[in-house]
């Protein structure tokens, strides 16, 4: 048999004879010949019968067979006769297979009118949001219950896992958190001095830096970074275990996923986020002091004096008291999203990104509520 490694050649010819149209296919026809063949077949408009002469067709693929079958269907509708003649056995076989497998459309279910669809989508979204809150409460409740159980029966507590997660979410986050906070301190000092200089009140830049970093930015930005870093890691870790049925396996082996997965993770965040917040505060003040020194000539000693005089220690308290709350929000949202992962890799990706968005949003929302609260109680 001849070996063909190059593009195989196929051709067709359409001839309108008296009272009939002859379509002659020859050579090896493939899907590459289909566009021109199909266009030509669609142009045949005669009433008379159509004959496909396949005598010199060496081979055809299913797409060509499909075109013949589709033509047959079209001409049948016009009551024109279609015949296939002198096809080699292999060619006839392909046509037969394709004709047998001809896909028949099934009526799609009629969609709802757009207004109904829109309303139902909004409704589903609202209900989904409610369900999400319930789930959050459920996972949070499970966390509390398991912690309480661990206090009663310390044996069930997993110290190794806790230490491991503390290292991952705490220690390994120190460089990025410190650097970010340092830069924020630098930016605040720089921008603040430019504004305050207009009033000759440069020295108040210390208050500006201290209050904004200690009260708000240090902890808030740390929480946002940790939300991006850790919530996604939790979702991905728990989600991939869920995907591979590891969590089901745990249950059948009598290991509680709450004890094994959720308590160490959330507790690690609970312990580490305040520490990270404190580091962020220190790094931010350091950055601010450095910039004040270079830009405004406020010496570090003067910065320190001004800091102690002008800034109440309650600012540190107001800042850091938020950290545990943020930690719970980030940890629980991350774990909850992980537990919701389905069986596909796609759902893992979707849940991971939605966990990060939800965690950051929850942190900012909680921060806003804290602001109002502290305003009301006058701190």
């Amino acid at each position: 048999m001849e070996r063909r490694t190059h593009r195989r050649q196929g051709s067709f010819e359409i001839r309108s004879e008296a009272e009939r149209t002859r379509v002659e296919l020859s050579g090896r026809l493939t899907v590459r010949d289909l566009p021109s063949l199909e266009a030509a077949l669609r142009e045949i408009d005669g009433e008379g019968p159509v004959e496909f002469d396949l005598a010199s067709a060496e081979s055809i693929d299913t797409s060509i067979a499909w075109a013949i079958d589709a033509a047959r269907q079209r001409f049948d509708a016009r009551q024109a006769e279609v015949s296939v003649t002198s096809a080699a056995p292999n060619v006839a076989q392909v046509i037969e297979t394709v004709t047998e497998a001809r896909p028949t459309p099934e009526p799609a279910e009629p969609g709802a009118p757009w207004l109904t669809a829109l309303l139902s989508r909004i409704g589903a979204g609202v209900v989904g949001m409610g369900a999400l809150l319930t789930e959050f409460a459920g996972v949070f409740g499970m966390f509390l219950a398991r912690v309480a159980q661990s206090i009663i029966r310390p044996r069930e507590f997993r110290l190794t896992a806790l230490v491991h997660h503390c290292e991952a979410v705490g220690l390994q986050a120190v460089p990025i958190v410190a650097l970010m906070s340092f830069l924020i301190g630098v930016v605040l000092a720089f921008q603040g001095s430019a504004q305050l200089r207009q009033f000759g009140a440069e020295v108040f830049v210390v208050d500006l830096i201290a209050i904004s970093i200690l009260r708000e930015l240090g902890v808030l930005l740390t929480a946002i970074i940790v939300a991006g870093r850790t919530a996604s890691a939790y979702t991905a870790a728990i989600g991939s275990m869920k995907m591979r049925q590891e969590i089901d396996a745990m249950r059948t082996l009598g290991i509680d996923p709450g004890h094994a997965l959720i308590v160490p993770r959330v507790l690690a965040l609970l312990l580490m986020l305040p520490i990270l917040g404190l580091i962020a505060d220190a790094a931010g003040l350091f950055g601010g002091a450095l910039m004040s020194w270079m830009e405004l000539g406020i010496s570090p000693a003067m910065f320190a004096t001004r800091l102690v005089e002008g800034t109440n220690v309650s600012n540190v308290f107001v800042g850091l008291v938020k950290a545990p709350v943020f930690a719970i929000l980030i940890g629980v949202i991350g774990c909850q999203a992980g537990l919701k992962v389905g069986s596909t890799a796609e759902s893992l990706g979707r849940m991971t990104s939605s966990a990060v968005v939800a965690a950051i949003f929850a942190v900012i929302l909680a921060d806003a509520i804290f602001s109002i609260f502290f305003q009301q109680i006058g701190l």
Partner: protein
Amino acid sequence: MAETVIEVRGLRNQFGSHVVHENLDLDVYRGEILGVVGGSGTGKSVLLRTIAGLQRPAAGSVRMLGTDMETASEAELRGLSERIGVMFQDGALFSSLSVLENVEVPLKAIPGLGTELTEALARLKISLSGLPWIAGDKYPAELSGGMRKRAGLARALALDPEIVFLDEPTAGLDPIGAAAFDEVIRDLSRSLGITVFLVTHDLDTLYAVCDRVAVLAEKRVLVTGTVEEMAEVDHPWVKEYFLGPRARAARGAIAAPPTKG
């Protein structure tokens, strides 16, 4: 015998110091269905991946449809990829696309094929693989394992390949689904003249569809031949495999119908 479409000579595959194949030779002929069997870890899937060009061998040559995979240019390999189709174990469908869109992906490479023709051809391939019309509009995650495999087959068949590689086509299917899938493979291979290279553990598939069997053992293709011939091979693993209780059952199932060959 017919034209040789795949020619493997002196193939050697290794991962680190672990040698999977050593001096492996194999021929596949046009139009046949070749079943590759072997114990777990004998590198059946590695062999499939190597021949399909997904993995470079450490030594040896693979010629497919007259092209040497080692020395072929980018363009030649691209042309070759249109002439082969691979169905992966779980279908390996793109999860963000519907089944119809999955099958349309290879068709989009054909110039001049409009959206209408592309869809019609994809629908035809879906139907040829034995899936109902509505399956085309579903996403892979909404399908059962068997339907995902069929969808994977439909995508592999999209460009009417000359060779189709099937990795464990019936693994994880119930016996009825597996038998139906076997039938689809055999019918399509016979009617469209497709050469099929399939890796399997399923004895029923071997007996029901394969023209020839290649046994992988001792890092090479130990023997090739029809399933009947396998019973006479004097090798402990082959004996156990083809004369074990499960093989007897599978052979019995084929021998039982009145149309005994």
